[in-house]
């Protein structure tokens, strides 16, 4: 991983780019700290058979309950941005303003977290009816069911923010990035579409980087000009709850962006 220092920005500034309206109601609830409300497992085993409701195929997916107003105004639109493992929805919410013309979907595997984000979006929409119409969340296992929701080449952007590191070697198969899963992400991404990933765990970052770099259908974006002008970059660094947690303890973050290409790159596998 010789590129580690040259290509990747080490982010240390802690200025939060998002002052979300949601902080306030949370502040009120904070008085009543009831344990069960907090007790949400940080980890989930994506291999176990959970009870998911998912469409048989993208044709069968009804998006109108997710984006009632937006789809009324733009019936031709499809979801183009996926936040895989959206957690408490920090990125999903802030992307709403950054990408106002695109439909954004947060995907999360933990039941209660999904309910939280769902409520959060409902409240945001109540507060400002003209905003936050282009975001939604659903409970799913993105490692299994992405092709059930999205057509080939439907997505323009896909985000993997601070995924579960699954440190144990036996659990590496559960990591959200692997060479076999990358093929599925390449399938749902449009040619030229972008995949963003960030982590505060160096080992995991290197793992993700290694797999992206070894996949023939992804190419790293190294041009700093492109990265600096991309409005999503500051958001992936600072907007999510996980990112702010890292900021509080002054932790380091590593990120990279890869582009989906059509002609496979030739990769010399060193045996």
């Amino acid at each position: 991983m010789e590129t580690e220092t040259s290509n990747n920005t080490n982010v240390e500034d802690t200025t939060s780019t998002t002052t979300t309206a949601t902080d306030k109601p949370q502040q009120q609830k904070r008085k009543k700290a009831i344990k069960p409300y907090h007790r949400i497992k940080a980890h989930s085993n994506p291999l176990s058979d959970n009870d998911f409701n998912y469409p048989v195929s993208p044709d069968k997916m009804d998006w109108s309950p997710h984006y009632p107003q937006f789809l009324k105004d733009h019936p031709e639109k499809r979801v183009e941005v996926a936040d895989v493992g959206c957690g408490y929805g920090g990125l999903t919410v802030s992307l709403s303003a950054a990408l106002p013309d695109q439909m954004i979907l947060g995907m999360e595997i933990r039941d209660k977290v999904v309910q939280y984000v769902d409520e959060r979006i409902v409240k945001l929409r109540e507060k400002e009816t003209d905003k936050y119409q282009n975001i939604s969340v659903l409970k799913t296992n993105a490692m299994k069911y992405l092709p059930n929701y999205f057509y080939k080449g439907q997505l323009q952007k896909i985000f993997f923010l601070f995924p579960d590191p699954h440190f144990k070697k036996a659990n590496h198969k559960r990591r959200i990035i692997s060479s076999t899963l990358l093929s599925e992400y390449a399938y749902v991404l449009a040619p030229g579409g972008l995949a963003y990933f960030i982590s505060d765990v160096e080992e995991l970052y290197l793992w993700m980087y290694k797999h992206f770099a070894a996949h023939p259908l992804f190419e790293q974006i190294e041009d700093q000009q492109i990265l600096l002008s991309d409005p999503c970059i500051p958001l992936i660094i600072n907007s999510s709850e996980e990112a702010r947690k890292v900021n509080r303890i002054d932790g380091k973050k590593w990120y990279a962006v890869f582009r989906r290409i059509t002609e496979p790159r030739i990769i010399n596998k060193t045996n």
Partner: protein
Amino acid sequence: MTTIKKVPISNFASNDQLGLIAYSLNNILRVFNTKTSTFINIDATKQHQEAIKSIEFSKDGTHLITSSNDKTIKVWNTTDLSCINSIDTPKKISSAQLTLDNKSVVIADKAGDVYIYNLDDTKEKLEKDKKDVEDGEEKNLLLGHFSSITDMIFSDCHKYILTADRDEKVRVSKYPHAFDIESFCLGHTQFVSKLLIKNDILLTGSGDGTIKVWKWKDGQLLQSINMFDKIKNEAPEPAAVLTTIPLYISNDRVYVYVEEHSTLFTFKYANNVIDESSFSSIQLESSPLAVQAVDSGNVLLVSLWATTDTTPLVVAIDTAKSVVIPDHSLAKTLNEKTEVPALGDKELKELFDTTLQSQFKKYSGLSERKKIHMENKNKDDQPEAPLKLRKMTTEGAAEVSK
């Protein structure tokens, strides 16, 4: 059907040009030469240790490949049935296929991964590769599902590889560039049991009781045939989960088997369309297990589960008339000449439980449990109180600990 009386033929393969019929009884591979009407001798020490799961001739007929529950793949030379290569795999095998040049073998396993091994490599290199896989290295990894793979086949042109999984999906990947997914065939609502390909058309069976016809390259569903309707006359109250298995497709006919039914179902098939009204069933003595077309597709050999002592191992079916041919010479010879390994009741039960078809029970059992779980959950969720959540912050944690 819960017991069997003798070891059945669990797999068939044939090559008309060479006049060879290969089949397996439990762990024993037998090859019969129809031209000389003799069995070819196979070194008993080279046979598999456990039940054979698949037998297949290479496209050019020079090789035979077998996979087994003992986690090995064996490649045989068809001229003298010598074992050219034996490869141990780290995981249980779902399917094994030779590549077009017979130089590599592609193995799909129950963990959901597909590996490719070069047969020219020395035993040491293969061993090392295998060990690397166990250590998490991925250089032989071709593709992977996040679910158990149930079946894998190459397209006729060998430019695509199709894999089916327990999560209802069929994936079409390019070959050898399997990282490039061409399409998904999505439509089944239960695990996919078997893939059967003929040019542009794919036939799939599933635990959802349907047979589906696909234009696999676009992932386009052309036709779905509900076998629940077809078996109504036989079993007025069919099981909740019905596993369908497409067995054979000829130029004008499709043969389908519904698990645990002692009937073979057949439809007329033309211009990529199955004619549902042409449905007919062939009553057999017991449930069929494996089929193989011989005699240029005019005859279909069907192996049966032996539920009584007198059940024949094989019956022959006239594919044009869709009737059983009594006293078909080849079927007769196989029935008379095949040495059936003697097994005790316990072993027979075990064999029955581990044979391919019964494996599906596990999957359907799982989905059944899933369904029950969902129903219970929905019941519990009815009076759902609005959930108030807030994220666990470091301040929050401190607060709680106070």
